[in-house]
């Protein structure tokens, strides 16, 4: 069922900018149009680009926002998982709780 919704109406998560728009909803309570505009402005792209996996692949790679390894492309030398969330917090200008915990535990 989740896969059907993802194909029918979902932004696409890390394939695009769905997770970034979701963060603005979670941390700032922004409605969708406002959240999309905010993320697009921070990434320096258009709102339309946010749902385009080709455009977002390049933007995510350039800004270090995390990429999904696939058969044809892996990213061992790029930020991934918790590393990418450090960059997301900085680029979006919002606190990310797991990043704050990581900093605290690693005494950074």
């Amino acid at each position, binding site marked *: *069922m989740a896969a059907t919704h*993802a194909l029918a109406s*979902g*932004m696409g998560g890390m394939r695009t900018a*769905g*997770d970034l*728009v979701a963060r603005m909803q979670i*941390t700032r309570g922004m409605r969708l149009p406002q959240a999309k505009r905010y993320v697009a402005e921070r990434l320096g792209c258009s709102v339309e680009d946010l749902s385009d996996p080709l455009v977002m692949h390049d933007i995510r790679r350039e800004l270090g926002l995390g990429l999904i390894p696939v058969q044809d492309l892996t990213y061992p030398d790029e930020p991934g998982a918790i590393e990418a969330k450090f960059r997301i917090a900085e680029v979006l200008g919002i606190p990310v709780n797991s990043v704050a*915990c990581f900093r605290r535990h690693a005494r950074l």
Partner: protein
Amino acid sequence: MAERIPTRLGDGSLVHMTRGEIEADLHDGTEAAARRAKVEPLGEDELDHLLDIFTSPARFSAVDIGHEVVLSIDGSGNRDINAPVLEQIVYQNHHGADIVEVWNSDYSYKAVKTVLSFQMQELKDTLLQTVVPVHYGAMPDLGRYSQPDGPAPNWSQLLPQGRIDEARAAQEEAMALLEADMWHTAEAAVATGADGLDFDTAAAAGDADFLATLHVTRRIRDAFPDFGVEIGMASEMVLGMHGQLEYEGVRLAGQWPLGQLRAVTAAGATIFGPAVNVNTTRSVAWNVARACTLVKPVTAEATIPVHMNAGMGVGGVPMTPYAPVDATSRVSRALVDILGLDGL
């Protein structure tokens, strides 16, 4: 003889209906909701759009490019490979999830409290290995605190005996216990690094269940301003099992989605998830028209994101564990197109 179009009933079974029969169901669905919740029925242009969606012979239906919404997938992971952290990564990498959720198989805050340290370890491991936001989720599930499962007297037994005051007191006793468990979990989830908490199927046990959820939400918002709280409802109307409970001067019993939104917003939640129950004997078209009618006032007024519940048996999705793709995709598109949702 009119062409008969393959479509579905609310139980997921395949039926064949004429265009005229589907159109009649759409009108009947919206009028049924309007009468029941005292809201406006859908307009002709909206019904025409739904008719286009439900009379298409295509196997799959989807929103227009650029109209995609955020998916906060409660209960992400299937628990079918006994690797809950990996399943969240699968939902992130393979299912296009915008938000994932760590959860316990016994999906209730009362049960979670007994295994909290293990759940928080699973949450931490997930947070270290994922990029998308991670919620921790469970049901408030007030009924768990009544006898024989819990310490409070059982109000479902007291009410038929006419012992109304005792039933109300029992629910208030249970509320205090529920709020303590939810708060305990919230503090742990914040300390572990979660992005937010999901209070899923809120008000399943009625107005006291809902009020406890609102109390804890307010407490979280005051203590942790950046922490997300998603409140997803259990059903379309709050049952008045207590009947006298209010939040900020408004009675909770009998609240339809718009009233629920107002309470949830006042409590400080960041995402609201309205739920509309499915009638399994009516067509999916009828159910979707009815669901859209009940939730349309919500998206028109909301100041916080609205992620409508569109899982098994709610929002128009058929009541079956293997919801057919043709039906689910039509529901997904129809809800987003008609309601202007922020997510599902």
